[in-house]
């Protein structure tokens, strides 16, 4: 039997992919299925009532707080993505085009430095920078530019956006960098040879060819930020809480796992839908390219 499995092409293939497959099944599919199931159940004090119901979803649709939170989450994610990708592109461009080849890996290494410390510590760091008695406010007060601490930079949505954008910057830089590296430099010379300035060459050749990297960066930043709850918890204050915080509250503080699960499913569907639209739009736009 064993011989038969290892000798056939198919058998060996199955054998090869089974460890990651089992891993994915246990760590991804089962939890997802569990969440999915939970979302159709009801919490009954300490017990879970397992009769099928759509009440959780009905509640999410009817109570405005959930819609508002979801909207705010999407808004924050969109802002973070925009800011991150816009800031990441010049960095990736600089490293790819203006750093000597032998120095590039050093630069990439430096870019990953923020990852050397824990995510939490990085979030607290921003608190120190943005806080009422933080670096920015004391600095500005000391040089007399302001009398009162600036309040729009801590415990609100702006603070969440700044912190998340910083956290995800390397994730955005790397795929864009890879896409830029892959561009044949003679294409840029060809464009100039055909009469385009460096500036126009960027828009007609470099940017379109870097688009796959930009798309990857957008997805890599957008998808996880929707689910982030540490940063909004620590930086968001009352007005900066996001959908993930609500999910956490439902699961832990309010002990209402089914409603939390339903919220998670809704958030997931939104992210999937938006990502798909984005990918499809891009495929349309990039049509005819290898």
């Amino acid at each position, binding site marked *: 039997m064993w011989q038969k499995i290892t000798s056939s092409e198919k058998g060996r293939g199955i054998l090869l992919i089974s460890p990651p497959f089992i891993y994915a099944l246990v760590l991804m599919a089962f939890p997802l299925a569990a969440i999915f199931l939970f979302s159709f159940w009801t919490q009954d004090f300490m017990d879970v009532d397992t009769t099928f119901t759509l009440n959780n979803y009905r509640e999410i649709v009817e109570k405005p707080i959930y819609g508002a939170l979801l909207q705010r989450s999407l808004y924050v994610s969109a802002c973070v993505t925009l800011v991150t990708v816009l800031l990441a592109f010049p960095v990736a461009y600089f490293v790819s085009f203006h750093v000597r080849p032998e120095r590039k890996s050093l630069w990439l290494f430096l870019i990953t430095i923020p990852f050397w410390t824990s995510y939490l510590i990085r979030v607290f760091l921003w608190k120190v920078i943005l806080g009422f008695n933080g670096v920015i406010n004391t600095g500005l007060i000391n040089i007399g530019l302001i009398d009162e601490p600036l309040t729009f930079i801590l415990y609100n949505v702006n603070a969440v956006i700044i912190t998340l954008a910083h956290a995800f910057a390397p994730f955005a830089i790397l795929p864009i960098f890879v896409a830029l590296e892959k561009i044949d430099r*003679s294409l840029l*010379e*060809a*464009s100039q*040879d*055909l009469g385009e300035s460096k500036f126009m060459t960027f828009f*007609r050749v470099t940017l379109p*060819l870097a688009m796959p990297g930009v798309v990857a960066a957008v997805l890599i930043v957008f998808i996880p930020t929707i689910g982030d709850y540490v940063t909004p918890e620590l930086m968001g204050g009352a007005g900066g809480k996001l959908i993930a915080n609500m999910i956490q509250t439902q699961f832990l503080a309010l002990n209402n796992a089914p409603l939390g699960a339903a919220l998670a499913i809704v958030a997931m569907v939104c992210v999937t839908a938006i990502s798909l639209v984005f990918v499809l739009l891009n495929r349309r736009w990039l049509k005819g*390219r290898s």
Partner: protein
Amino acid sequence: MTALITLEGVNKHYGDYHALRDIDLTINEGEFFSLLGPSGCGKTTLLRTIAGFESVSSGLVAIGGKDMAGVPANLRPTNMVFQSYAIFPHLTVAENVAFGLRKRGDLNKAAKQTLVEDALDMVGLDGYGKRAAHALSGGQRQRVALARALILKPKVLLLDEPLSALDKKMREQMQVELMRLQRHVGITFILVTHDQEEALVMSDRIAVMFEGRIGQLADAETLYRRPRNRQVAEFIGKMNFLHADVQAVRDAIDLEVQGLGRLQITAEQSPELRDTGPAVVGIRPETLGILFDGETTDRKLVDGVVDEVVYYGDMTYYDVRIQGVEAPLNIAMKNMIGRPVLDVGAATKVIWDERALVLLK
């Protein structure tokens, strides 16, 4: 013939490396000019200084009488066919060809489209416009690159080893097509190649480069028949070299050649050297011959022994040792009816003629 491109004392340094050394060059309008030389001799560098992708360390580059110092590539009246063709992968064939037309405000969309179609027609790619550029074969890419450059009607078309990526058949076909195209459009072509045959076949004039210098600049026949020095002679075709002693230089030149004895050549057979003393003469394999049984000749003969035989089908190459010369002479013989292929060790008579000799520096 008016000069179109002038290079005067052009030098190029990459750090310590001296890539171009005192290049003086004039290329005429409508000429098919080739830069020929071994790998790393600076052909691409020279082409790129004309295109504007490299600045010169010293010297002057002028196109159409205008000094090109500080003029970027996009403002020079040159277009280039890159060695890798550099076809834009995100555009279709037609969009590639139309790339340089964006700034032509005098043309409306329909006029541009006509131009693109004409250009594709010219390179034999009519009907390929809608294809994705990445789905083309090597030969087709090359044609797109040509169409894309020629549509802009440049004064000069620069071609950096455009045929080296193609197989032999395709290469020969494209050589003929390029020549036809050049005659048709009347644009100056500057072709970079390391293939001497390609250069000889296609060019009006050829500059042979070695280590950043121009070794000789001449038309194909002069280059082949009257190379200036041993380096050029060795690079272009095959050549036998014999030591010689120049004894008198008058209207004609008297010399004593190893293995061949005393003889006299005309001044025209010595492109450079005019001094008495030791020298080297060259003689091409096809100007020597072997006297087969039953054949006669009124040219000179010297005894030899066959050392090596290489059979090519239409030709046979013999290495024949003659007395007093250490290296055997390479002789190319056409295989004709009644001519057997000789065996190694066979005693033969070598036919030679002093008119085929060239005295080298």
